[in-house]
């Protein structure tokens, strides 16, 4: 199963999300693009498979 494209020309990809961490347990919000500035606690990336269903990320709240 192939999701996405290696030739993608945009920084936003269906199913790919980023969270800018305040600390190690920050889980929200998720952004569509890579954080533009520094993130104190690091950056969390989330890959959704299949990416045709992308509104599933609330499960991260119960990490």
């Amino acid at each position, binding site marked *: 199963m192939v999701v*996405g494209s290696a030739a*993608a020309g*945009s920084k936003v990809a269906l*199913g790919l999300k980023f969270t800018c961490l305040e600390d190690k347990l920050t889980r929200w919000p998720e952004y569509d693009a890579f954080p533009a500035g520094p993130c104190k606690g690091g950056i969390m990336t989330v890959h959704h498979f299949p990416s045709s269903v992308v509104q599933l990320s609330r*499960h991260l709240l119960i990490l």
Partner: protein
Amino acid sequence: MWFSLALALAVPAQAALRFGCSTLSIQRIDPLVEPGKSPSRHLHQIVGGNVFKPNMTGDIGQQGTCTTCTFSEDFSNYWTAVMFFKHSNGSYKRVPIMENAALPDGINGGMTIYYTQQDFYSNGNMKMTAFKPVRFLHHVCDK
């Protein structure tokens, strides 16, 4: 990403699976995008089973014997791009990979794997069957 496992998640109970996987290796290998090629164009962090190699064929679940993931029934591999920080002097340094602090101790770096049906709270209208060997590719790079 790649997995081949026979998971018996009960249907119709609401079910989701989450587990941590330590870093297995960081290598320029990509059996999905560039099978058989070493080095591949991109560097990856790999987690999971011990069958990982540049050209993976057959049922990995049958070939593996151990894994960096929590569940020993799953010898899948999962891999992602690796990020570098570009310093002002132009040099690049690989960004350290942090384990999921919400999981029990024992995972080093790596990633957290989820298997859900519709989402973590609902099955939706979906029924789950045991997985057949399958490969997932999610690729955004070359930008």
